[in-house]
């Protein structure tokens, strides 16, 4: 069984962002990147599937990113993915076109399972998994916190606003990981060194026959800082008084 894990590199959330000169994007020059945390969870789940239900599984990490993005793909290799594929693309790309490129890769690789993050923590779109499943005509299971293999597919726990839903999907399928699916392992130093020897293939959207057709045009960005100044009160009574003055409680 082949498992394909889309891996996005995203700016490390623990840093202060700046905007570029015309405020249409963040200033990428001073940013450190990490593997999207939800994609790390997806890689971990693929590894666990290979360690338990499907020892023969081949795990392929795929990223659409500029050439430097290879560094973050190597994180997936160091965790234990078998090979990595970098689709080189400079600049912004929206979820629709990411899904189109991934679909083209999937037509070549023919995996049985796509395991990916529910959301990239830069655009916070939460769209690519659903778009991809729709384009492929495959069933989808989003926001997943547990996966069990059955004789004819996957039994899945999904985290919804109203509670945990259990569904069953046949394979091939697209599964998007929520935070509680697992806790990703850290790559050990030897595995990081070993990962340097694992193959990374490079391709481009054009080689896959895809010409991006933008659906989202970003006009501008604004950094949001706190507009508030905190008044410190010293007792619970004072706090209630302030809240009454603000007319938010009676």
């Amino acid at each position: 069984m082949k498992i394909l894990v889309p891996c996005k590199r995203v700016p490390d959330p623990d840093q202060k962002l700046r905007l570029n000169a015309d405020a249409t994007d963040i200033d990428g020059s001073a940013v450190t990147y990490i593997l999207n945390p939800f994609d790390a969870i997806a890689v971990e789940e693929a590894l666990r599937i290979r360690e338990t239900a499907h020892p023969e599984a081949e795990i392929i990490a795929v990223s659409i990113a500029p050439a430097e993005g290879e560094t973050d793909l190597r994180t997936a290799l160091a965790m234990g993915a078998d090979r990595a594929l970098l689709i080189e693309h400079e600049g912004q790309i929206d979820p629709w076109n990411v899904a189109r490129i991934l679909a083209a890769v999937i037509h070549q690789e023919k995996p049985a399972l796509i395991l990916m993050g529910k959301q990239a923590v830069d655009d916070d779109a939460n769209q690519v998994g659903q778009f991809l499943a729709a384009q492929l005509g495959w069933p989808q299971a989003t926001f997943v916190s547990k996966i069990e293999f059955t004789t004819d597919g996957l039994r899945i726990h999904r985290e919804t606003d109203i509670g945990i839903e259990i569904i069953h999907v046949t394979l091939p399928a697209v599964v998007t990981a929520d935070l509680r699916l697992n806790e990703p392992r850290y790559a050990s130093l030897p595995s990081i060194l070993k990962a340097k020897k694992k193959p990374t293939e490079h391709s481009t959207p054009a080689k896959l026959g895809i010409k991006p057709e933008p659906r989202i045009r970003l006009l501008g960005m604004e950094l949001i800082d706190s507009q508030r100044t905190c008044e410190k009160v010293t007792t619970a009574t004072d706090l209630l008084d302030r809240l009454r003055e603000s007319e938010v409680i009676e």
Partner: protein
Amino acid sequence: MNKVLVLLEHDGTTLRPSSGSAIGFARELSDEVTALLLGEDLGAIAAEAAKYAPVLTADHESLSQNVADRWAHVITEVARSQNAELIVATSTTWAKDIVGRSAGLLGGAMASDVTDHEITDGQLRLRRPMFAGAVNATLILEGSPKIITVCPSAYNAPKPADIPFLIETLSVDASTLPSATRFESLDCKKGARPDVTEAHIVVSGGRAFKNAEDFEKYVGGLADQLGAATGSSRALVDAGITPNSLQVGQTGKIVAPELYLALGISGAVQHLAGMKNSRVIAAINQDPDAPIFEFADYGLVGDVYKEVPRLIEELNGS
């Protein structure tokens, strides 16, 4: 913008109140707003929806559970046959799953979690948070139809009409529906408190609370005194102390109540993303340097195990 289709979420019995936000947004853009309901035995829900807009129902036993591939298939067919230019829903896990897939069938011009809009030079400009709310982006969608989910806190439901709108039942050809997904069960933890996205006051607890009993006693107790919803940080969800449905933040729910009370929450960016647009924010934290105070209007430095009982007692006495 002419034809707008609003997708309404329901639990099989009633409309999800936050669905009203999508209708409110749609009404700001168009006079031709139609609501679409999918499910089985939709009579009472359709009657409720008809107070806000003309309603189309796809009412069929094969749609009894909101399975994404089936529902998205039907939504797509209706959107095409209605020539909808815009499809709107309120951003919830339901919408992210099902409306997201519909958008994937309809060409992918989708914006999620929209908080504001304007029409400039005939162009619909949308604003939405990115990077855990650190950035507010303005964008336009290229292509048609455009699919938009709005933050429940950003738009209000319109007033119900005195005379209900018409309800039209669509025919459903069950033989064409995808069948690769099977619903098994939903473990629905419905509490007596309002939903965190729909309450005027949210009392939220963080890692300061050591177990579920304490959370219920302190956070729940204070919420009940205030008629509020309870929320929580991811830390408590991870620890299994609170259910996922209470999680406020970048990867949970985005809320903007009149009052957000953060109890023993540090104020990580991912948490702030979910609550920083609340009207008034108050925080109790024993660490005077906790980042939550930078985003609060009122701060009390203290132990939640001591201060919360005082709040409950005073409210109880008044």
